[in-house]
């Protein structure tokens, strides 16, 4: 049923399922309410990350980056930023 709801079944199977769902009250209700379950979740707006959380995240990352630079682990970009190649 998931693949039917995701529209990822082939045309022939889809037609067969649609015919069955249209004739079977139980299947119609299950498919319809499952579809609506997905719709209501997909309709949820994502909450933004609280400003304090963002600030602490960036502070932690900056600290990590500074520590890595201090160890001399990642200086390549400053020397040759155009290579686009991963360090070997």
């Amino acid at each position: 049923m998931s693949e039917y709801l995701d529209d990822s079944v082939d045309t022939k199977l889809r037609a067969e399922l649609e015919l069955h769902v249209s004739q079977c009250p139980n299947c119609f209700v299950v498919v319809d309410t499952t579809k609506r379950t997905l719709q209501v979740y997909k309709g949820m707006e994502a909450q933004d990350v609280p400003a304090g959380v963002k600030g602490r995240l960036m502070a932690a990352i900056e600290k990590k980056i500074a520590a890595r630079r201090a160890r001399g682990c990642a200086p390549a970009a400053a020397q040759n930023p155009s290579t686009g190649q991963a360090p070997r």
Partner: protein
Amino acid sequence: MTPSRQPEEIAEVDPPETTVAPEEASEPTPAGFQEAPLVEAARQGDAEAFSKLVKQYERKIFRLAKNITQNDEDAEDVLQEAFLKAYEHLDDFQGNSKFYTWIVRIAVNESLMKLRKRKSDKTVPLDEPVETGEETVVREIAVWEGNPEDQYSGEELRGILDSAVQALKPVFRTVFILRDIEEMSTEETAEALGISVPAVKSRLLRARLQLRERLTRLFKRKGEDVFAYL
């Protein structure tokens, strides 16, 4: 690097290189955002590039962590730990998959570790076979009364939806969140969780049906509910 199928180990060892082909993956990023050049620059030490990746995905990763852990403090910890771990292991990321799929996998593992530490959540390893028991499911057959969005405030509805997701076992919850909330493809979800595509499909169906049952109990048209074995 061979992809690991033991996601529980990943958070403690190192994030794996993944093998999802680009054409198999859905596109979670807005038009115009080019992830690969930023990843390359970050790997070569460009801090600004890594910051751009963080800003691009922090909202999704925070929501993912909050949905799995159902806890603000844990979600913040997961957010930090996931990006810090990704930065530490950038050299292990070889670009065969999207950075987003990679960071999702790290965040899922960090989230599951939080659940384990809490000990109130009976966690099943993600790669363990799960008996879905479809043949024994009792389904509630009742149509819904109108649109839930019209009957509840946004906050009330969010609470209802969060509670229903929280009631799912983690093995089902994680698949549902990645597929239906984060809208990742089946292949990406399999890669991010270190499980097979058939396992994703099976668990997704189970999760969807369980959520349908819970929501139907709340949203059904009164007086016309019928229980039936299918």
